[in-house]
């Protein structure tokens, strides 16, 4: 069964992925087989993607991340939430992000 993304959940980068700056790009490089999709796939994040990624600190839920981004971007909060969920979905299904229980 495919898991859906929940906005009140905490997502963190997998330890099997390295995030790095390469030239002018911010790149996610999968380390282990089965993370990412094809063998030498890497994922570049644009500025907004990186802003979301940087906030995935293992503490904040997606809702809290969206809220924080709302203070920086002049965009309606519903739209930001949609973006954060879309971004998470994309990386979650590639096992680049996974879900952890909220730490109180």
């Amino acid at each position, binding site marked *: 069964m495919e898991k859906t993304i929940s906005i009140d959940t905490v997502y963190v980068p997998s330890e099997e992925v*390295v*995030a*790095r*700056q*390469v*030239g*002018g*790009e911010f*790149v996610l*490089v999968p*380390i*282990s*087989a089965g993370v990412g*999709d*094809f*063998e*030498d*796939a*890497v*994922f*570049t*994040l*644009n500025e*907004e*993607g990186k802003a*979301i990624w940087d906030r995935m600190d293992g503490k904040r839920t997606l809702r809290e991340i969206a809220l924080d*981004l709302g203070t920086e*971007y002049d*965009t309606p909060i519903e*739209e*930001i939430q*949609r*973006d954060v969920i*879309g*971004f998470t979905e*994309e*990386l979650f299904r590639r096992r680049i992000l996974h879900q952890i229980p909220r730490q109180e």
Partner: protein
Amino acid sequence: MSSTTEFVVRKSLNSLFSSNAARPILSRLDIELTERCNNNCVHCYNNLPLHDESVRGRELSAQEIKTILRDAAALGCLGVRFSGGEPLVRPDFAELYVYARRRGLRVTLFTNATLITPTIAQLFCRIRPLEPIEVSLYGMAPKTYESVTGRPGSFEAAWRGIHLLQEYKIPFAVKAVILPENKEDKEAFVRWGETLFGSSGENPVQFVLYLNLHARRDSVRNKQICARRISAEDILESLRQFRPDYSGKLAQFCRKFMKIPGENIFSCGGGINKADIDPYGRLRLCMLLKDPRLSYDLKDGSLKEAVTSLLPQWRKIKSTNPEYLRRCARCFLKGLCLQCPAKSWLEHGSLDTPIEYFCEIAHVQARSVGLLGIGEQGWEVKNGKERIASYGENN
């Protein structure tokens, strides 16, 4: 934020820079992990005995190599190439490999495959190198193989390693070194290559036809190597026989790379976003360039400093050798010829001397495709550009 923006773009590692103006200042680093090797091949240009403790004692520690890898990744480096000697003789190889991959570097490994164990194969399977493992192979039968490596049991060990790569589906390429000792195996190499990935596409077995002289200019070794060099005519024959579409590829190559180099001795890509680190921590412009004057001890400074200031400075060196200026500097075959500063130093101890063996190979190749007439010399030709253009058009 906008929902129309693509937050995540999937790319292949190779295409990462196709549209990227901001290339990293270092895109690939070669690290020679050791010069020691468990084989003792007759033609090898740099191996030292496996158990040489004084050599071992001078090699970089795992921690020092990790620091270099960390610094390279910080400079944006995408890939590291571990070579040797035989890199797998280092007991910390797995640790270094995992470290490099965890820094987001893809890894190319040059190996003779004899030390690939199930544990190593499983590691490559779990944490993919992202580049084919490059296996050097010296024969298709124990007799031929071991007459090159000088080590009983090495044939079986190499094939065990290769079979493990196959079993774990780890991509690899094979460099088959052709020597008098194993030339009878040529056909067998090709046939085996075809069974590997089918006969369509490029055969993963590539022949190494050119031997380089010894890294430390050892005269005994050099005698051994020279005695095994294949003649220019035989090289041409092998190229025609075993490289599909040899003439078409050569034409493409000529269009791209053949131009008169002038007095600058580096007309290759060595040192452009790339560097080499020897087993003792000295940075060089490339793996083959052993002239101690063009080396920099990383203990004296940073990788960044060396890459950004020294490499470009070295690349500006101009020839002062009248013979080079008379010939190579004016030769339209230069792009086709294997003469380069690194090989010139191995042969002559100077960076800018013509190399007769490579000169002959370039001339034989050029004559065979009509770029040169009988008796003509590459450096005397005035209309090289036109000749290359018309050869390119017709192939």
